[in-house]
């Protein structure tokens, strides 16, 4: 197992641990649907994740992370205590390459985005984008 693969597995584990820490409840659109679990795995594209780091390589928690969809719209989340963010995934009809990730935090300015290569033929392969900030 090469080091890059090890790193990705480690990062995925961090994301999974973070996700497991929150509850999961059934959703209903304003009516009685008897607790259907709206499993939308088939219509969901790959998830997005990555570290937010400063220029020293340290992780930056609580940074604002914006995913901008080329066709319009955006989703905003924040990095967790370990500086990792995760976006569960957009619609499968949206090309992952048409989504830009940017990050910001008070006291920092943007210092680049690194999009790690992935297998475009594997629609489940997560999209890893690292975002770097520089202290002002």
């Amino acid at each position, binding site marked *: 197992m090469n080091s890059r693969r090890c790193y990705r597995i480690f990062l995925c584990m961090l994301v999974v641990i973070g996700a497991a820490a929150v*509850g999961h409840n059934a959703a209903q659109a304003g*009516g*009685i649907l008897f607790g259907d679990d*709206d499993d*939308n795995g088939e219509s969901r594209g790959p998830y997005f994740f990555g570290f937010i780091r400063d220029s020293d390589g340290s992780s930056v928690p609580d940074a604002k992370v914006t995913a901008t969809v080329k066709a319009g719209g955006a989703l905003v989340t924040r990095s967790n205590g370990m500086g990792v963010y995760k976006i569960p*995934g957009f619609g499968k009809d*949206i090309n992952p390459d048409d989504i830009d990730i940017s990050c910001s935090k008070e006291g920092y300015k943007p210092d680049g985005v690194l999009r790690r290569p992935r297998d475009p033929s594997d629609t489940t392969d997560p999209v890893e984008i690292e975002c770097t900030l520089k202290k002002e």
Partner: protein
Amino acid sequence: MMQAMISGATRTLGQVTAIALLFGVFTQPCRAQTLTGSVSSAEEGPMEGVLISAQKQGSPITVTVVSDDKGHFRFPDGRLSAGHYALRIRAVGYDLAGPQAVDLEGNNAEVAVALRKTSDLAAQLTNTEWFMSMPGTAEQKRPLIECMSCHTVQRIVRSIYNAETFVPMLERMAQYANNSIQARVQPRIAEREVNDDSLRKLAAYLATVNLSHGPKWDYALKTLPRPKGRATHVVVTEYDMPRSTIAPHDVRTDRDGNIWYSNFVENFLGELDPKTGAHREYAIPVRKPNSPTGSLDLEADADGNLWLAMMFQASLARFDMATKTFQMYPVGADLDDDAMQQSMVMPRSATFDGKVWTNDVARQSIMRLDLKSGQYQRIDPFTMLPKGRLHAPYGMAADANNNLYFMDFGDENIGRVDARTSAVTIYPTPTAKSRPRRCMLDAQGHLWFTEFAANKLAMFDIKAERFKEWDVPTPYTYPYDVFSDGNGELWSGGMASDRVLRFDPQRGAATEYLLPRPTNIRRVFVDTSTKPVTFWAGNNHGASIVKLEPLD
């Protein structure tokens, strides 16, 4: 389109039915009276946290106080006038042994209220207490939170359906409109699809917690503690509505201190004078006679005029407070159908751009009304998200530039729609599957909202784009709405616990005021012109308006 609107004082006045019920005669105190007393039981001696309610014969108004740590209670001076009063208590595990009534005449009265152990504890349990008591996983119990829209959990646990006979009953329930109560059931016109596997799974679970196996429940009935300390320093006033089919949903005060409410199941806007008890209704034109009637969201615009979201009637209604007439804004034929369901309206900043926000629950979409043309624009805020996921734009707020903030009640997001560009930004809540429900935006740009399924109160700072969340202290409360009173405290209520939550988010301090009767709370409203503030809500299933006055 404009011609299609029902407008103009002359025409609308003809359609307004004003029913003035002169309750005032019952509420004007002839002279100041005070009712004081003590409450005790053989089991506990003097009892704290017992709710004592007094209702004058023939009056629609019930006043309730709570006994203190010595078992004493006192109705504030001037709240009761001379007459014959029925007494009622609420203390889980107990019934009133006596006296059942008291006469107030020239002098102040003092009564010794005696309680005895109840023989039917189950009848006293709130929805929250049933959720606490029922065995089963959180996932198994969760679908029942939908049932509370129309009836209490009592109805489920006392049923004798088995896993098979529950199925057709649940299928039937699914075809009732959200705006149904036991006193008035309204079928949907457009059929709703139901997942058969989920329905059978639920039916099988419910058959394990009801009375299909025998005359008693085979699990212990758990109860919440009685109020104590600060939670006893309160006066609750209930105003009974003149019909059981009045289902107050959203309640708010106007500039004169009068109460206005939306009726969830009938096409009336209601008005209550809390000083005299006078009650009036204003008939809202029925546009679709075959569709369910009633309205949900009641909001005020910048001029103080009221707006109603007419649910399956597929229209917004604007009520002119000066002329007391309605102007209707029906959804055009190009967007309307039998499933169309407008539950929300947000006119607060309409003066900025002449647009009023609303929604269509059936299509999981935002709608925007152009006041000049009467045309609606449909916006799908979830195009970027995976298809097949359930969403429901619900509670709404608008900033000064009429940018919209909305709750995704079906899922776990707050959304923003830019008023100028219609661009949508989605903000997932920190807690997954939180189902944000109703909200309010304060002057500091704090969007306060409830996470209905996550049992949390939450705040989204629209400038910093940052969330904060607080657990509601009692499990299974399922808060419906929250109001920030501007004094650093939040007020919340819901359909499950019969309690009003007062919460200080800075200190995490909570006070839960128990209400005298089963109370299905939806929108909550706080009148901040009084000191302390006054809390108002409708009892959606109990045909009453509830006023709660904390004494500190």
